[in-house]
């Protein structure tokens, strides 16, 4: 007798809303007149908002034969992923029309990638995690190559796809080795199996390969080499979205695998993750110093931020886990915002990618320059912005452990943050003190949706900086989940 696995469809209601809206947008775009694509944007945003509202209040549970879990990490991870998805939709429409790239499939891909990140947050099984990772990644490969007539964008998509597929193979091989050692792919069973027997070499190799697979998605050094090239070539709104959503997915998965599932073996992986975090912070920040392209600078900056986030995962205490989620929430706002500023500019037919394109922006568009400076200050981690709160949470959790490693990581984090102030403030300085471009080569493009995205992200960055309790009171349930183990 075959009994179908117990399925609880109410548990996956947020994902079903997002994917249902994606399917609806895909179908509607076939018959909708091009000038009415605004309806697709509106439908996507409505779906994201509805899903976020459901996800924030949904009750805990486990279903689908134990492959799917809804708990505190799922809740926080999904709400943050949905916020990033909504912002990803908002920054795109004007840019897509400007470069004649406006097709309804863009929003379908953004929503699908968002659903992938949501499923990563809810995976209770390594195979489920792999499927979710691919659901997140494949739309991102297409989004990177979205500018069809642009060779750089095609190159970015191809590079991202080939290296991403390679990283996925690592991830799968890691799952296979762990299965060979323990006979299971369920994370809780893995926990108990590895607790009973001393971890063998193949289990260690399996965990290592999982780390490589996720490290690629999160752009950790030394698996980061794709990031600057892909970010430079891909269209700006796609970069704004992918840089944030890939980090959310990867770091929620890292929290799920390392502190939550393999917490008992912490002494074996904290050193590895700690070294990776230190390398990522140092290489990301030093390489960002030398960039003259705004997108490449932000690419290395996003690598550096992955390093700060990994400090939280390596620390693996309840406050650190909460701090990682706080960081992701704030990064979603400031990361998207920093790219959104560039979306609003254009240099003679192309993206305004050189840092000198931002010269004298404050004189021409005071509000846009103020928003840009705010995001850069926040990315540098200076008070009173959200970026300061985010870094403070991570470094305080690392110091609190009292271990030499935690202290060293916090020290490296603070020192590299000081370095980062230079390259962020250089752009802000150019915006305010630079000679404005008189030839009229750099043009401004304002659109209500882009302005809304800038307003939301700027408000979120300031709000999180002034009243951090608003964010941390929501994310602290992740730490509570970890401390109950």
């Amino acid at each position, binding site marked *: *007798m*075959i009994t*179908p696995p117990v399925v609880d469809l109410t548990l996956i209601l947020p994902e079903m809303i997002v994917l249902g809206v994606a*399917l609806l947008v*895909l*179908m509607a775009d*076939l018959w909708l007149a091009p000038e009415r694509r605004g309806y697709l944007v509106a439908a996507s945003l409505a779906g994201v908002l509805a899903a976020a509202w459901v996800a924030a209040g949904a009750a805990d549970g486990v279903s689908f034969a134990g492959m799917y879990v809804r708990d505190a990490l799922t809740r926080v991870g999904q709400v943050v992923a949905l916020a990033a998805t909504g912002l990803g939709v908002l920054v795109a429409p004007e840019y897509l029309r400007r470069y004649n790239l406006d097709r309804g499939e863009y929003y379908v891909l953004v929503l699908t990638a968002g659903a992938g990140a949501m499923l990563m947050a809810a995976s209770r099984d390594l195979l489920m995690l792999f499927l979710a990772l691919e659901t997140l990644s494949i739309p991102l490969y297409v989004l990177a190559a979205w500018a069809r007539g642009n060779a750089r964008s095609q190159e970015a998509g191809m590079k991202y796809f080939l290296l991403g597929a390679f990283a996925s193979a690592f991830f799968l091989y890691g799952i296979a080795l762990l299965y060979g050692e323990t006979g299971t792919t369920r994370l809780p069973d893995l926990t108990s199996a590895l607790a009973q027997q001393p971890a063998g070499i193949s289990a260690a190799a399996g965990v290592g390969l999982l780390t490589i697979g996720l490290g690629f998605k999160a752009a950790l050094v030394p698996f980061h080499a794709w990031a600057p090239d892909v970010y430079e070539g891909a269209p700006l709104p796609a970069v704004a979205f992918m840089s944030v959503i890939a980090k959310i997915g990867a770091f929620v998965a890292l929290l799920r695998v390392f502190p939550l599932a393999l917490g008992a073996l912490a002494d074996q992986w904290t050193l590895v993750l700690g070294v990776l975090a230190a390398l990522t912070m140092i290489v990301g920040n030093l390489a960002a110093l030398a960039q003259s392209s705004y997108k490449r600078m932000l690419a290395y900056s996003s690598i550096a931020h992955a390093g700060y986030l990994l400090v939280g995962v390596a620390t693996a205490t309840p406050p650190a886990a909460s701090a990682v989620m706080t960081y992701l929430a704030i990064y979603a706002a400031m990361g998207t915002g920093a790219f959104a500023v560039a979306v609003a500019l254009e240099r003679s037919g192309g993206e305004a990618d050189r840092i000198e394109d931002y010269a004298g922006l404050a004189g021409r568009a005071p509000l846009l320059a103020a928003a840009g400076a705010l995001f850069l200050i926040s990315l540098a981690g200076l008070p009173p912005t959200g970026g300061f709160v985010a870094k403070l949470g991570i470094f305080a959790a690392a110091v609190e452990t009292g271990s030499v490693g935690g202290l060293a990581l916090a020290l490296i984090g603070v020192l590299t943050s000081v370095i980062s102030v230079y390259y962020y403030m250089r752009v802000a300085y150019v915006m305010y003190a630079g000679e404005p471009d008189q030839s009229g080569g750099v043009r401004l493009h304002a659109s209500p949706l882009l302005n809304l995205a800038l307003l939301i992200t700027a408000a979120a960055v300031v709000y999180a900086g002034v009243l951090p309790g608003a964010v941390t009171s929501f994310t602290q349930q992740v730490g509570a989940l970890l401390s109950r183990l």
Partner: protein
Amino acid sequence: MWFRTPGGDLLLDYIPVLVHFVIVVGLTAALPALHALVGGSRPTPPKMEPYESGVWTIGSTRERVPIRYYLIAMLFILFDIETVFLFPWAVVYRRLGAFGLIEMLVFVGVLGAGLIYAWKRGALEWE
């Protein structure tokens, strides 16, 4: 014992496979060797053709295939996978009941939406 796997199964069960393997390797080595030793070799131009008794090859084998072919091929694979899921479902259809039917209808419905999309976007047009 060396012939026991960690699971406890006797590796001896696989002796027939080993015998088969040895015969295959032996035969494939022995037949060409026998041919070379006693058969001799008298090459003539027709014998050196790629297909001694077939049609003459026309043009290069490195033919360029229209990109449309790949589009159709990809769509074929996508919908071919659908049948992979339909077969096991059909086998246990009665025991799964209404639940299985609805699940499969949703699955086919999503794929159907994909077909409509591909059709409407012109992916099925050859010209």
